[in-house]
């Protein structure tokens, strides 16, 4: 049987049509849903702080936070010895901080500047000690505490942060 040249052309056209149809058929369009909700971090802001600072790390960072300069290695060694000589480490930290607060050169905001903008003070304090911004609830609660009790001076607040568990971790 012989196929004419015209017939071959027709067959080729049919095959090309079928082949093209297979690879260019219709696709269902994906539906994108949008609910008008902002993306938010659902984990706590301090979730990555799982490593306990050593005494040396704690002291060096504390000194830098309070004086905004580095502590000498000799002083670091001596302070570490002081820590080892007191069993209650929380008390040891408290007394050390109370001592540092009396030394010249400690950089701490005034009560007036804190009260002028409490939210900014809270933000700065969180960044200074915790290296993070406060959550809205933290900010609201602290603001309420500060406003309700005039005994909350920047010094007392700084000591509270420096004594807190979160400050012991990084």
């Amino acid at each position, binding site marked *: 049987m012989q196929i004419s040249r015209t017939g071959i052309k027709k067959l080729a056209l049919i095959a090309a049509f079928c082949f093209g149809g297979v690879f260019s058929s219709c696709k269902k369009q994906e539906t994108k849903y949008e609910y008008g909700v902002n993306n938010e971090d659902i984990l*706590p802001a*301090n*979730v990555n*702080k*799982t490593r*306990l600072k050593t005494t040396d790390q704690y002291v060096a960072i504390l000194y830098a936070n309070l004086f905004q300069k580095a502590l000498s290695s000799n002083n670091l060694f*001596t*302070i570490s*010895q*002081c820590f*080892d*000589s*007191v*069993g*209650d*480490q*929380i*008390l040891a930290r*408290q*007394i*050390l901080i*109370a*001592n540092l*607060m*009396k*030394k010249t050169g400690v950089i701490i905001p005034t009560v007036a500047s804190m009260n002028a903008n409490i939210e900014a003070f809270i933000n700065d304090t969180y960044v200074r000690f915790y290296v993070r911004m406060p959550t809205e609830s*933290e900010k609201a*609660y*602290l603001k309420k*505490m500060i406003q309700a*009790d005039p*005994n*909350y001076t920047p010094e*007392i*607040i700084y*000591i*509270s*942060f420096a*004594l*807190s*568990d*979160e400050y*012991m*971790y990084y």
Partner: protein
Amino acid sequence: MKRRDFLKKASLAAAGSIVAPYILPSGRLFAGNNVQAAQHVVLVMFAGGVRHQEAALQGYLQLGQGIKISSLNTAANAGNIMPSLFNGAAPNGSLTPIVYGTGSTGATPISPVISGATSIQSLGTTFKEVRCLTAGHYQGWTSLLQGNSAATQGLKQKPIYPTIFEYVRREMGVPATKVWFCGNGIGASLPLLNYSEHPNYGAKYGANFFAPLITFGAQGQAWYEDAKAYDPTTELNPMYAMKSFLDKNFSNIGKPLPDLMNTAAEKYDIHNFMKLMFTKTHNNSVACPPGASNGDARNIGYCAELMSYFKPTLTVVNLSAVDGCHQNYTGYLQSLHQADHSVGWLWNYIQTQIPEMMNNTVMIVAPECGRDLYPNPIKDNNNYFSYDHSDANSLRTFTSIIGGNTPPNVVKGDPSNPIGLNGNVVPTIAEVLGIKSQVTSAGFLAQGVQSFYDLLP
């Protein structure tokens, strides 16, 4: 709710609220069913590896150097250089060199505060031939505090088993400031001994700790002394309240930090004591044994001040100057003599200067380990040989007990008949304080460890 049910539940709740405050941390309702022989116990961990031959055996240079220097190997070179702890004639200066005293050559023995009829041997019970559980310092300390010696105990690791500090706080429910450990320094992991890492015990039952020569020495004066004294009401309370808020926000993230659970009032009290000690240190008015001035003596002095201030239920004080015996035998003899003087002074101080503890205290003196039979090759300025601690002789020691119901003038054990283990200190303290059954039933004491009182007739 029916009236009968309401009344039943209300009465149960009322009963619970009355009983609850008296439930001890261990879950017991009462502090113990044993008789408490005294309200205070003082344990002196004495004094850095004491060679038995110069201590209880009173061999001085005969047993100390006679093994290498034959001219000293005669009875004329023996004698008692620890008159506060043991009865016996001192070395005769006309027959043997006197090097254990004070002065540049050690030729002047210290005049003892107690001796003879008032010595610890005369007024108490002496176990003259006790066996140590181990021959090292840290393992020895943990043995004295745990009543056990764990093979897996690391040198830079907190005690594995509960310490006597934790037993006392847990079983008696006493606050943290009633249990103290006074270290002579911060080396050799000493600060780790104030509580164990056992999960059922730990920091919340731990002892407060000071290393006074550091805490109130140059280091403490530089970084603690000027500490601002915050008002407990207007400053400390807000401070703790804010810290509490901050900690709650972190409670699900970090592990809880070790806390001795000193209350805010106790912390304030400890800080006040520190300020008092800084003042006394500058005034040179800290209590101190009159005839000794080395680190051990000064540590004993600070410990006496601490007891006078806090009246602790349990005080443990560590001495370790005699460990100089590794390279200086003469210095070792002098330190041993000073340690004996200091302990005698401490007992006298308790009986005369602290009315609350007078006639109400038991003191136990126990070395953590002994020293070798044969010396090492190191000679001191007198050409005397030095001693380490690693052989069987290092397990030979003594234990002296005085006060409470301890029978006077009793001596138990001799070289051919050793009696007791140094780990017995733990159940002995427990017996004095009325918690022996709880401590022994806790199951952490080594096999054979028992109260020294159980070894008396």
